[in-house]
């Protein structure tokens, strides 16, 4: 058990809370699922309750909800134009979900759902699937112009198209890995430094004195992680907007 406490990987373990097995697939309600529910409930409740008074002059919390709404709205309008506003609910949901999941993960003993590649990959696939499906629905095969930039010499075209295809295919990977790796690395680092504090303190007076350094480090890292939590949610939303712009305007 002592080893578990300082094991930086321990926080990422998934425990079944309610085992569910359907057709051979393990669909158990796990701690990960619990925190997905928590994230959704916290985010939805915050947005719902802070705006319930519908004040003309907003209070502090209502301002926060409105700021988030307008922040994402402006981001999408800048990247994808007015036409892109039909994806506003999707981008806003993604931003709020990732942001609240990242922030909740900073609480001690809380599980960080975005530190699991399959979760971030699932969200990234959702984005790319939206781009591809909407792109083909709106432009038909004209959507494939996305891979053929204008003004490229014909003899270079096969190479450029190949590069464009590779870059498009790597989008869901980069989108998901960026978020996942940031959250994972941040939480491991935080845990390692916090573990140093515990280990050093066990060594007596000298150890307690020596543990000040990793403690200060852990405090600083917490602040950094707070920034990263917001930044990664922002980056995820911005990239989503840019990819959606491709679905709306495939010609470069």
């Amino acid at each position: 058990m002592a080893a578990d406490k300082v094991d930086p990987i321990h926080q990422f373990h998934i425990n079944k809370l309610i085992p569910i097995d359907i057709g051979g697939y393990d669909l158990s309600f796990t701690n990960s699922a619990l925190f997905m529910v928590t994230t959704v409930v916290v985010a939805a409740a915050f947005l719902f309750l802070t705006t319930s008074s519908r004040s003309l002059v907003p209070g502090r919390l209502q301002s926060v909800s409105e700021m988030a709404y307008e922040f994402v709205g402006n981001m999408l309008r800048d990247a994808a134009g007015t036409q892109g506003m039909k994806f506003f609910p999707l981008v806003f949901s993604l931003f709020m979900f990732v942001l609240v999941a990242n922030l909740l993960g900073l609480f001690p003993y809380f599980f960080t759902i975005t530190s699991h590649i399959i979760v971030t990959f699932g969200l990234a696939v959702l984005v790319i699937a939206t781009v591809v499906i909407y792109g083909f629905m709106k432009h038909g095969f004209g959507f494939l112009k996305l891979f053929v930039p204008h003004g490229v010499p014909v003899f270079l075209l096969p190479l450029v198209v190949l590069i464009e295809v590779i870059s498009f295919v790597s989008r869901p990977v980069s989108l998901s890995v960026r978020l996942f790796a940031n959250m994972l690395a941040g939480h491991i680092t935080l845990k390692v430094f916090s573990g140093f504090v515990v280990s050093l303190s066990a060594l007596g007076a000298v150890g307690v004195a020596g543990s000040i350094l990793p403690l200060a480090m852990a405090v600083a890292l917490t602040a950094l992680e707070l920034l990263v939590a917001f930044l990664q949610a922002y980056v995820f939303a911005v990239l989503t907007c840019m990819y959606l712009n491709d679905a709306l305007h495939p010609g470069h």
Partner: protein
Amino acid sequence: MFVTSAFAQESAPSADTSHAATEGDTHSGTSVPAEAHGTFPPFDPATFPSQLLWLAITFGLFYLFLKRVVMPRVGGIIDVRNDRITQDLDQAAKLKGEADAAVAAYEQELAEAKTKANAIGQQANDAAKAEAETARKKVEAALDAKLGEAEARISSIKANAMKEVGSIAEDTASAIVEALVGGKTSKAEIAAAVKSVAR
């Protein structure tokens, strides 16, 4: 929602068939407790189906809730506020226009009143001048008349006096002649003599 459900149906089985079916089975065959310590938890394919399922459920519900409830409400609040602001600005502009119009009307009225006052003053001035002029003329005419009368009286008095000068001179001359010569002279001779001297 269309995309979300499609993705859920699409991704969950594909992740299962590609990873869980191959790697998951081999792992469970070799060491069951490896799930806890062997593989790095985020890369453990055994947890993928459950995580994807619950992600699809939770995120799908979250998406629906935001789209149906939260976003219309927040958007409504912001729209109402923007409408209110533009309305207030319009009203302020309208009130400013009204105030400007009132100021202009006031200034115009003031200018009109000034010209009117000037006209009235001028008129009164002219009337007073004309009255003074007629009064002066009347007085002058009366004075002229009196002057003429006086001159006429003076001239008549003078004429009378002149007329009497002849008879006085005749009397005086006859007296002088009587005294000097001692003889009587006829009145006619003396009158002719006086007349020739008076000439």
